[in-house]
């Protein structure tokens, strides 16, 4: 009993710490234009590759741009678009999962086999192929990542709907005259959503990682737009002389991904949600 309580407090502590880190990051992202000391895309070759100073808190890159300001603005792209990927993939997955699970039959078969087909291709390869066909760019990468990601949500949601739909209270709702839509709204979605929130937290880290890796490969965000993955890519040539150019954005990616994963992990422990 005591050990259980201690575990619970511990997981609560993790949840509190992680959410406050993410909260601070979110605020920074929101107020980036006011916090940033310099223009993130202003090139100033006279000041290139400088050490940290009062004017440039984290120094400058090979084009004399302020690294600190670029990281702040980069957070907007990394976090913002990761959120976009997450929300879109979740909505598609929610709709398809519920339709497949609730309808069953050939609709279910068709949707799930389509999903299986998508899952058979490694996600990075799929996005690479997508970019190969439609050309490099943020839009294509985001679309590709959404197309890869919805399958996971759809599968989990379908599973939950399948077990929910056998519950007596769904039958009772049908008998008390509720339409399919009412059953969805009142019984299915409210029971699915909490698990989804937990799963979503875990998947946010995934989205940020993938978005950054695509940018690192030069396929996602195009210069001069600041983005963490792209910043690592640009700093790569100076790895011997100025490793800081890669370390700062790299650290930020690590911090955010680890925080999201820890938060997701302890939330799923707390609420007993299984992943995938």
């Amino acid at each position, binding site marked *: 009993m005591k050990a259980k309580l201690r575990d619970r407090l511990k997981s609560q502590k993790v949840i509190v710490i992680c959410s406050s880190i993410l909260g601070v990051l979110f605020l920074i992202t929101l107020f980036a234009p006011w916090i940033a000391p310099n223009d993130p895309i202003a090139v100033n070759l006279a000041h290139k590759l400088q050490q940290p100073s009062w004017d440039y808190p984290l120094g400058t890159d090979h084009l004399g741009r302020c690294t600190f300001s670029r990281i702040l603005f980069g957070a907007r792209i990394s976090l913002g678009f990761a959120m976009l990927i997450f929300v879109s993939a979740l909505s598609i997955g929610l709709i398809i999962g519920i339709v497949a699970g609730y309808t069953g039959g050939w609709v279910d078969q068709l949707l799930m086999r389509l999903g299986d087909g998508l899952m058979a291709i490694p996600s990075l390869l799929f996005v690479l192929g997508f970019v190969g066909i439609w050309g490099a760019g943020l839009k294509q990468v985001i679309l590709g990542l959404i197309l890869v990601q919805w399958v996971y949500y759809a599968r989990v949601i379908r599973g939950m709907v399948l077990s929910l739909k056998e519950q*007596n*209270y769904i039958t009772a*709702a049908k*008998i*008390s*005259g509720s339409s399919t839509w*009412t059953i969805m709204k*009142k019984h299915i979605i*409210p*029971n699915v959503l909490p698990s989804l929130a937990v799963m979503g937290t875990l998947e946010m880290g995934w989205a940020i990682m993938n978005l950054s890796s695509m940018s690192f490969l030069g396929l996602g965000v195009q210069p001069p737009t600041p983005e963490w993955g792209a910043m690592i890519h640009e700093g790569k040539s100076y790895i011997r002389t100025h490793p800081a150019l890669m370390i700062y954005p790299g650290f930020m990616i690590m911090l955010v991904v680890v925080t999201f994963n820890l938060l997701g992990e302890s939330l799923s422990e707390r609420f007993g949600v299984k992943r995938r």
Partner: protein
Amino acid sequence: MSLLQVKQVNFSYNSKRLFKGNDQTTNILNEISFSIEEGTCLGLIGTSGAGKSTLGKVILGIQRPQQGQVLFQGHDIYNLNKATQQKIRRDLQVVFQDSYSAVNPRMTAERIISEPLENFERLSVGEKRRRVIELLERVGLSERDLKKYPHQFSGGQLQRINIARAIALKPKLIVLDESVSSLDMVTQSLILKLLSELKDDFGLSYLFITHDIKAAFSISDQIGVLEKGELIELYDSKDQFFSSKHPIVKRLRDSILAEHPRFRTLTTKVKLG
């Protein structure tokens, strides 16, 4: 005209086999026919696996039988236009065995009971609440239980909420699918008392599905015995049941334990298998 007429209903599960020969059919219900008159209760007893619950689902309109008809107030419930379907849905309700799984754990008692009201009646918020309180009081709960969640109720109380939801629309027929079987003896008799009161007050009819012979006799006007998907016999009174010569009825009868162990003789011992 009877309230409910079941005519030669056959139901079977079909397990499709992709590679091995023919499809396998398992017969669950075989040529079932009976009727329920308005204001009466038909008790349906049988061992587990006899097809009792499937029959309940067929009557409720959620499990279409392969053959036969279910006529409710003269309408075939599997062959209806939208308007009649809505009307019949109102008049046909259910109370399940497991009271916990029959309610959404995320909804308060108020929301559970108001669900059928919202589906069929346009009520203002205040009016709806007044009706829910009325229903709660009718089943022996009170206004204080309005905002409670299912886990805050006992099994018996929750079964009362299920009953309140079932009678909310003033239906004609309620299918009681093992509704008292998971309750203790005292609660069972209280719920049975409530059910027979409601029957008289609202002129309800019941189809009381149970394996508990004593419970069946306490509120039923007619008793049917179901065994392996077949309706063996119908009895109008307790005496008829107890004087029946049918071997399956005899076995069921013998399985009733005497009130005190002292009265149990060798002949009343349950034969297994």
